[in-house]
């Protein structure tokens, strides 16, 4: 299991897109850290460490994440099913372990990115109050969004369609928020519970996103156990 986890993480961190993403994130963090010094946005509730600056930054990341997760990990199962390289693993390790290692790798990858970005901003601002609460909530959102990507990668036949579903979610999530603002009704109020931003803003219990995540993971494992390769 650790071998698969290691391989997925290494090949991801070494990939060209990952390097591009890392550069973008560091740039964004630099800009945020630097310019917020002169803006009122940097002052906030410093006792809990959740300054408005971090709220803004994390919101941006969470909005982008369905897209980035699909770009980075869309092929995590779909590609290996398609080129049949999974056939080397299936006889020697259980499907459950394969999937679990891959899912873990996805989550570690994003948690590390969030951590890098946060550290950069803190360093630049010479502030050492870590936005713990925001970071913790973000971890649940990362688990949730990666579960969706994983589920798509199992059920769709190509990396490309997983990417497209990422694009759809990337538009769908803010779309619901907008719809809610313009004309609130029972449908979009219910749909609010699937939006990551709802949880980042603390507008709903984390328990709901945890249940959603568990359901999606269960669905992924179930479908993968039935998938012919």
């Amino acid at each position: 299991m650790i071998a698969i986890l290691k391989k997925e993480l290494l090949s991801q961190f070494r990939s060209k897109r990952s390097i591009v993403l890392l550069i973008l994130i560091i740039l964004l963090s630099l800009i945020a850290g630097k310019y917020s010094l002169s803006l009122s946005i940097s002052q906030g509730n410093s006792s809990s460490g959740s300054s408005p600056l971090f709220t803004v930054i994390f919101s941006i990341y969470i909005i982008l994440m369905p897209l980035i997760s699909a770009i980075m990990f869309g092929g995590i199962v779909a590609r290996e099913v398609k080129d049949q390289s999974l056939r080397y693993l299936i006889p020697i390790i259980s499907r459950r372990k394969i999937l679990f290692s891959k899912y873990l790798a996805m989550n570690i990858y994003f948690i590390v990115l969030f951590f890098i970005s946060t550290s950069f901003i803190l360093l630049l601002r010479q502030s050492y109050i870590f936005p713990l609460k925001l970071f913790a909530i973000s971890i649940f959102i990362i688990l949730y969004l990666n579960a969706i990507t994983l589920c798509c990668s199992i059920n769709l036949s190509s990396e490309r369609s997983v990417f497209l579903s990422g694009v759809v979610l990337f538009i769908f999530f803010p779309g619901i928020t907008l719809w809610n603002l313009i004309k609130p009704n029972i449908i979009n109020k219910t749909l609010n519970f699937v939006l990551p931003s709802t949880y980042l803003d603390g507008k709903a219990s984390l328990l709901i996103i945890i249940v959603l995540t568990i359901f999606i993971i269960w669905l992924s494992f179930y479908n993968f156990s039935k998938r012919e390769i």
Partner: protein
Amino acid sequence: MLIARNIKKSFGKKRVLDDIDITLENGKITTIIGENGAGKSTIIGIISGFFFQDTGTVQKSTVSVMPDADSLFEDMTGKQFLKYILEIKKVDYKKAVTMAETFGIKKALNKKMCEYSFGMKKRSALFKLI
């Protein structure tokens, strides 16, 4: 020892395997012969766990397979691939490298596998089994 009993398998409406029984003994070479599309790969796929039979049972211990397809983890070098598989199988890497010499693939271990010729890929895949 591998025992498969009453294996039936259809792809969609097409019945590919109809009540197949196979017994394979350890240490014996057994061949499955049949024309193209007869279902040889399908039965091997079921034994390996790639496909699921509609009915029937397979009793087996560990099975090593050299997949049919011309597929390896293309972006890994031979060495990375080998280490990866060995780590999962919990086999010592040094022992494997000595064996790689016998197979004549030792030199190629540092190359990316997408540069391998078909024969090289097959040799690596076969090597991985042992």
